[in-house]
C-alpha cells in the first residue's frame, strides 16, 4: 500500500537579544567559559524573580507578524512543571493557553501549487542549561553549564499540515530566512540556535483518517530533521505493511546511528501542571504596539523575490537564490545599482561569487569583493578590456586578494590585446607554424579557424581579443 505522512513541526529559535529572557546576564553564551553568564535569577536561587525582556517580546511579535499570525487581547506566561537537572527552577516559564500569537501561516510549494502551512502558535519561553554527559573510567555522570539557562527561546508550532518531507525542508529554509531577515535569530543550527521537534503519522494515501502519532525529539540539524522523518516514514510503513501497529511514543534521533530510538511511551506521559506564572503580570498587545512593530519589519523574502524579478528582470530562480539571505539580496541590489546589466550581475553572484563563498566558507557579509568592485569588473568586461575568460581569473584574484579589478588587471598584465597590429603579427606567426590548418581552412573546413583562433589565444596567454583575432585571421586567410 502507498502511505502518505502527516507531519507537524515545532521550531525552537533562540532570540538574538543582548540579555537573557528574565535576567540581565548576557545571552550570547557561545564563547563564554562554563557558568560565567549566570546570576541568581537564571541559576534559580531561592528568592529570585523574573523580569520580562521587552526586546524578546517584540522579536516574537515581529516573527508572528511575518508569519501572518493574529494576537490575543492579552497574553500571559505560565509555569510548566517538570524536573530535570538542566531546568534550574524545576519549572520552565513558558506560555500555555494564552500565547503571544496564534493562527498564522507560511507558504511552501507543493505538487498541487502553493500551499499554506498553518502556524498554530508562536510563543516565548526560556532555554534550559547545557548538560555534558561524561563517561570516565567506568563512571558515568553529567556536568551542567547554566550559561544557556534563561536565554530567550521562541517556539513556533505548526499544524499537522506537511504532506511530505520536502514540504518540511522548504518550510525550514523559508522560516530560517525569515528569522534571519528579521534579525531575531541567527538560524545557526550547529550551535543550537534553531532546534526542532516533529510529530509524524502515516495513513494510506487518499484516506482522511489520522494514524498514530510518533514524536521525534532532539533534532538539532537540518539533516537530522529530514533524515529522521524519512526514517520514521519508512519504519512506520514497514510496520503497517507487516500488519503491525504504530505505538504512540516519543522517539529521539540518534545522529550517529541514523535511527530513531524510543525515549518514552505514552503510559508515562508527562503531567506538566501548567498554571499562570504569579511572578509576571499579563502582556497586553495594543494595536499601536503591534503596528509600530509591523512598521519595523523589513521586506521579507517572498516579497523581495517578487520585487527583484519585476524590477530587474532576473529569473525567479535567480531571485530565489539571491533572496535566500537578506545580505545577499542587498549585495545584488548594490551591484545592480552600479551596473546596467542586472542579469549579468545576478549571474555572477549566483554562480561565481556563491561558489567562492561556499568553497572558502565565507559569509556574504565578509565577502572581500565589494559590490563596487564587481560592478567595475563587469564594466571592464563590457568595454572589452578583459575577455570573459580572463574575467573569471580576475574575479578569483579579486576574491583572493581583496583588491579592485583594475589593480589586478594591471599588475598581472591581463589587459586584453586589442591592438590590431600586435595581433596581426601573432596571427602571421601562428599561420606560419600551422600550415596544415591554414590549408584545411582554405579547403573549406570551418573548424580549422577555431583551432587557429585557439592558437592565437594560447600564444597571448588568453589576452588577445577573440573577436579581433577571428576577424584578422579571416582576412589573412
Amino acid at each position: 500500500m502507498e502511505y502518505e505522512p502527516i507531519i507537524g513541526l515545532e521550531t525552537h529559535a533562540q532570540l538574538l537579544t543582548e540579555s537573557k529572557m528574565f535576567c540581565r546576564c548576557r545571552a550570547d553564551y557561545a564563547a563564554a567559559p562554563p557558568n560565567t553568564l549566570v546570576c541568581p535569577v537564571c541559576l534559580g536561587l531561592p528568592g529570585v524573580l523574573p523580569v520580562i525582556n521587552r526586546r524578546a517580546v517584540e522579536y516574537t511579535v515581529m516573527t508572528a507578524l511575518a508569519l501572518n499570525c493574529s494576537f490575543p487581547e492579552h497574553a500571559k506566561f505560565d509555569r510548566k512543571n517538570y524536573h530535570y537537572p538542566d531546568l534550574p527552577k524545576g519549572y520552565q516559564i513558558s506560555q500555555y493557553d494564552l500565547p503571544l500569537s496564534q493562527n498564522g501561516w507560511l507558504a511552501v510549494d507543493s505538487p498541487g501549487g502553493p500551499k499554506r502551512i498553518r502556524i498554530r502558535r508562536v510563543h516565548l519561553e526560556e532555554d534550559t542549561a547545557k548538560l555534558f554527559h561524561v563517561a570516565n573510567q567506568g563512571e558515568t555522570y553529567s556536568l551542567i553549564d547554566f550559561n544557556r539557562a534563561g536565554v530567550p527561546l521562541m517556539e513556533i508550532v505548526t499544524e499537522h499540515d506537511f504532506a511530505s518531507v520536502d514540504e518540511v525542508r522548504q518550510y525550514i529554509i523559508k522560516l530560517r530566512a525569515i528569522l534571519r531577515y528579521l534579525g531575531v535569530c541567527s538560524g545557526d543550527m550547529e550551535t543550537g540556535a534553531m532546534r526542532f521537534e516533529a510529530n509524524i503519522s502515516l495513513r494510506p494515501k487518499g484516506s482522511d483518517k489520522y494514524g498514530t502519532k510518533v514524536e521525534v525529539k532532539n533534532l538539532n540539524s537540518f539533516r537530522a530533521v529530514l533524515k529522521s522523518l524519512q526514517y520514521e516514514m519508512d519504519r512506520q510503513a514497514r510496520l503497517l505493511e507487516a500488519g503491525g501497529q504504530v505505538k504512540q511514543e516519543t522517539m529521539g534521533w540518534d545522529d550517529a546511528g541514523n535511527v530513531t530510538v524510543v525515549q518514552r511511551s505514552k503510559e508515562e506521559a508527562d503531567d506538566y501542571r501548567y498554571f499562570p506564572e504569579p511572578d509576571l503580570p499579563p502582556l497586553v498587545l495594543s494595536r499601536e504596539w503591534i503596528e509600530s512593530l509591523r512598521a519595523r519589519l523589513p521586506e521579507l523574502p517572498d516579497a523581495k523575490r517578487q520585487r527583484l524579478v519585476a524590477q530587474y528582470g532576473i529569473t525567479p530562480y535567480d531571485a530565489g537564490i539571491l533572496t535566500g539571505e537578506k545580505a545577499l539580496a542587498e549585495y545584488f541590489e548594490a551591484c545592480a545599482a552600479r551596473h546596467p546589466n542586472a542579469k549579468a550581475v545576478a549571474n555572477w553572484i549566483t554562480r561565481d561569487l556563491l561558489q567562492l563563498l561556499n568553497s572558502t566558507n565565507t559569509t556574504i557579509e565578509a565577502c572581500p569583493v565589494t559590490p563596487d568592485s564587481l560592478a567595475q569588473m563587469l564594466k571592464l568586461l563590457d568595454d572589452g578590456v578583459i575577455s570573459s575568460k580572463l574575467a573569471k581569473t580576475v574575479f578569483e584574484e579579486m576574491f583572493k586578494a581583496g583588491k579592485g579589478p583594475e589593480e589586478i588587471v594591471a599588475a598581472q598584465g591581463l589587459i586584453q590585446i586589442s591592438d590590431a597590429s600586435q595581433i596581426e603579427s601573432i596571427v602571421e606567426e601562428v599561420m606560419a607554424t600551422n600550415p596544415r590548418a591554414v590549408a584545411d581552412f582554405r579547403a573549406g573546413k570551418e573548424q580549422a579557424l577555431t583551432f587557429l583562433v585557439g592558437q592565437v589565444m594560447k600564444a597571448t596567454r588568453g589576452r588577445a581579443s577573440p573577436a579581433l583575432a577571428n576577424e584578422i585571421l579571416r582576412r589573412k586567410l
Partner: protein
Amino acid sequence: MKLTVDQVRHVAHLARLALEPEELERFREQLSAILEYAEVLQELDTQAIPATAMVVPLENVMRPDQAGPSLPREEVLANAPQREQDCFRVRAILD
C-alpha cells in the same frame, strides 16, 4: 474525596518525593481530609466568575534589553553539592 494509596504514590512521583510507607498512608488520610474540607467550594456557582491569579492590576511589566553583570563563577558554584571543573555535577541521567 478519599484518595487511594496509588494516587498518593503518583502525586509523590510527580513531586519527586521519596515517602516511607507510613508517610504514604498518613498523607493519604490527611490529604483526603483536607480535600474533603475543600469540597465546600463546590457549593459556589463560579461558572461566570473569572479566576484571579494575581491581585495587582499591572500589565506589560518589562525591562529594557540591557545586559548587566553576572555572578563571579566561584559564587555561582559556591553552594554546589558536587562540582567538577567549572560545572555542577550530577548523576547520570537514565530516562
